């Protein structure tokens, strides 16, 4: 019997329908594979009993011909999504022992569509990080290695558990979240597909908040089709999230075919950074050429404000985070470090409960919102943010999609960048604009560098342009024909 974990969601769906194998078999295959992959540290907690009972229920529905869109598909859930009766702690010590009595809207949507939950996936603490090194549970390891080296590399962040698990086939697909690039950068570093939808497309209800105006849930999958299938289930209008958009959810899978013939695709010249990795430049050029070959018109466009995106992001996101994380005070749930004085209790709890990177961002956020600095930092950043969004909207009047690299480099080793926060922050340089402008983006595996590490390309679309974006991504994927797999050193 072939390895069931090699099948995509689409293939599993067809196999279930044809009764080639059962959801229970597929789930067992994933469970044993995931349980053996402790070296990757992708899961913070597995839910095998739940998964098995869900798979059993799925098999019953399949037998009755009542399969739902994700019936029996084994999924990993980023531990930023609150899951009912399953401990959720955002990879933070401060949420020790927190068991939500509710299910996030996105994970509920997946359950309603028949998804099977294998467990909760590791991430950077509160989704703050680009390498998964800030997790209280230790970093996730990338299945990909540099040639024959044994150096452990990052799977990217913050959705590193999701990218590593999908790449190593520890789940069929995973949920993830993207605040500045946290879906697309990990996807790029692990040769997976990551979709950040338009802001408001997926409900934020029940997702532990990092930066409310930027956070958006999306999937990490093996290929573009699976991304489309997952997104169709994850997306919804949710009256419980005031920023959720009331707009019908298309069947994204139907949007995949048709190619890029006649499409106009922009290459933003400012994304060509000084001293940029030549291999990335080469992959980018190759992607552009392939799209041209498919009949797309590829043109150079200018987005001069892009250079301000990262500084703006590192004001807005910490500011919102400093307020969003104020609720973790030791009073109601999670960690409490006892003291008879309430202020001492707050300080001790938060000093012990939050890791260094989270503390750094809370300090930055508190600073930029404080009296006397608000106008110079936060208000100004919001004004620039508006201009960046306007600039993008203007460019999208003349092009359908933008093509850029997903990240400025391939996977790196632990400790290589964590000493310098600024260098770490630069990981988001290509992705962060989409969050500031609220537009969708997708990262597609594009090739391997000289050391054998994956590199990704990003397509960006105007707000609610997911269908065009997926069609472009599918064409690019097909043309690239990327099919490399990591060597399975961890089993």
């Amino acid at each position: 019997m072939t390895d069931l974990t090699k099948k995509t969601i689409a293939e599993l769906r067809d196999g279930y329908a044809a009764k080639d194998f059962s959801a229970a078999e597929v789930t067992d295959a994933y469970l044993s594979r995931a349980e053996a992959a402790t070296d990757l540290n992708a899961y913070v907690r597995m839910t095998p009993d739940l998964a098995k009972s869900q798979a059993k229920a799925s098999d019953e529905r399949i037998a009755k011909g009542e399969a739902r869109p994700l019936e029996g598909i084994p999924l990993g859930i980023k531990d930023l999504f609150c899951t009912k009766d399953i401990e959720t702690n955002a990879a933070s010590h401060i949420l020790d022992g927190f068991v939500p009595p509710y299910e996030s809207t996105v994970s509920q949507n997946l359950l309603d569509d028949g998804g099977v939950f294998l467990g909760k996936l590791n991430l950077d603490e509160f989704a703050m990080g680009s390498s998964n090194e800030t997790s209280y549970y230790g970093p996730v390891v990338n299945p990909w290695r540099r040639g024959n080296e044994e150096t452990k590399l990052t799977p990217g962040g913050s959705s590193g558990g999701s990218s590593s698990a999908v790449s190593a086939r520890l789940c069929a697909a995973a949920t993830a979240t993207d605040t500045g690039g946290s879906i697309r950068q990990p996807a790029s570093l692990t040769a997976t597909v990551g979709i950040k939808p338009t802001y408001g497309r997926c409900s934020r209800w029940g997702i532990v908040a990092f930066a409310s105006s930027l956070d958006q849930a999306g999937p990490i999958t093996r290929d573009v089709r699976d991304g489309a299938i997952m997104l169709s289930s994850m997306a919804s209008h949710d009256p419980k999230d005031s920023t959720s958009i009331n707009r019908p959810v298309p069947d994204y899978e139907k949007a995949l075919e048709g190619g890029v013939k006649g499409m106009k695709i922009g290459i933003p010249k400012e994304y060509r950074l000084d001293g940029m990795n030549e291999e990335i430049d080469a992959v980018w050029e190759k992607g552009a050429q392939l799209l041209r070959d498919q009949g797309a018109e590829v043109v150079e466009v200018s987005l001069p404000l892009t250079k301000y995106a990262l500084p703006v992001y590192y004001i807005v996101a910490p500011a919102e985070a400093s307020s969003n994380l104020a609720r973790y005070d030791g009073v109601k749930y999670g960690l409490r470090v006892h003291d008879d004085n309430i202020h001492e209790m707050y300080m001790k709890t938060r000093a012990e409960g939050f890791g260094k990177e989270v503390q750094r961002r809370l300090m930055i956020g508190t600073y930029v919102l404080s009296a006397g600095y608000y106008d110079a930092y936060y208000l100004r950043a919001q004004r620039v943010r508006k201009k960046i969004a306007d600039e993008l909207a203007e460019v999208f009047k003349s092009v359908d999609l933008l093509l850029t690299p997903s990240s400025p480099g391939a996977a790196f080793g632990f400790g290589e960048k964590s000493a310098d926060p600024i260098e770490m922050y630069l990981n988001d340089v290509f992705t962060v604009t989409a969050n500031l402008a609220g537009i969708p983006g997708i990262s597609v595996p594009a090739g391997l560098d000289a050391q054998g590490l994956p590199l990704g390309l990003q397509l960006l679309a105007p707000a609610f342009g997911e269908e065009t974006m997926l069609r472009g991504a599918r064409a690019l994927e097909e043309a690239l024909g990327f099919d490399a797999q990591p060597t399975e050193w961890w089993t």
Partner: protein
Amino acid sequence: MTENRNLLRGETGDWEVVIGLEVHAQVASNSKLFSGAPATYGAGPNENVSLVDAAMPGMLPVINKFCVEQAIKTGLGLNAKIHTWSRFDRKNYFYPDLPQGYQISQYKDPIVGEGEIEVELDAERTITVGIERLHLEQDAGKSVHDLAPRESHVDLNRSGVALMEIVSKPEMRSAEEASAYFSKLRTIVRYLGTCDGNMDQGSMRADVNVSVCRAGNYAKFVETGDFSFLGTRTETKNVNSIRFVRQVVDYEARRQIQVLEAGGEIDQETRLFDVKTGETKTMRSKEDAHDYRYFPDPDLLPLTFTDEYVEEIRASLPELPDAKKHRFVSEYGLSSYDAAVLVADKDKSIYFEDVAKGRDGKLASSWVTTELFGLLNKEGKEITESPISASQLGSLIDLIQDKTISGKIAKQIFEFMLDEDAGKDPKDIVEARGLKQVTDTGALEAAADKVIAENPDQVAKVKDKPKALGWFVGQVMKETGGKANPQAVNAILKQKLGVE
């Protein structure tokens, strides 16, 4: 300018007091501002708490449209500008009964802007007080410190309850004006049904801002808008009765004048009122002031609605106290002050109008305000608990107006209706008790003849002293058991005794 009756005499000269009020009025609503949890009073600890109110991870606020409508209604009742675009901000600070670590409020862009209301002080004086703004915000929970020796407890029932903060301009100049303003606000929100005004349950409370300045400086402030003419203000928090507002202003003005005259300075600080001593004391000085790090709440979209929506609400407003007051003056011939007293309480004004409709307004007002309110005050009852209904009182006034009974008999019947004749129609009482006024001149003449015949000495006296006629009237009334029409008796006696 007219004489300033609000001057306060100090050791070193005259002072003026300047007062502004920030009133927190709980929106009358079944559920909270951003969650579906009940906003009712009196539930057990933490019974009215949703996941949102407890700030569970990933929970998001969703605006309660009814609360928005209530705020717009109140803004219209304050004759204020309604902002069709407003926004919620987060006010960040740590406190155990503030589960989110921030309060959602409106800082820069409130839903309601400037307005003004009329405030009656007494029969002669009505002032206008400017409204600076009204905004919506969440209430916090409650910390309980007396359940355990070394622990505090938190009750989140109030967490997230909708409040309207109504900020006045610094335009009140005495304790009397400040308390009358507070009282008038209460009247307006109760008319609108946007707040129940129950101060003892915390539904309405005021932060009282008081400063003093040298006589004449307030006028300079008004002229120039330059706040430096005003003194440093203190803010006394959570004052929850009209009487306490008065006490706070009196106490603070005196205290501040004493400090200043002794060469001291007023600290801009937050103070607390001690109900037992009637004094205020420092709660938090300016140095301890929080940096609230306000910023727009990214979980909520700006609050927008159309002018048409505002107009729809305007069209649905009930008659407001000032309009009703003016109507009572023109329709029932009442004095402005009497009308203001009647409209101060919506239920009282409805009762009055039920009595007065189609009758003599002044007579109705006198019976309602003097006899009925006197009775209710004595018994500590609300108008809604009145033992005499508006239709009973109206029927009684009908009997006076058509001369079936005299005013004196009417008062007797009023007493009967409180006791043995409770619930009966005054007409039936008159009938049953034979209290009908005697207008039959034959019977009256016979009674007059009898009194004249029996009192020759008095008859002699009345020739020289016509005022003695009153004695005869009294005797005839006695003869007829009080049922005689006094005017008719008077006329008959005058004629029989030859008195002009």
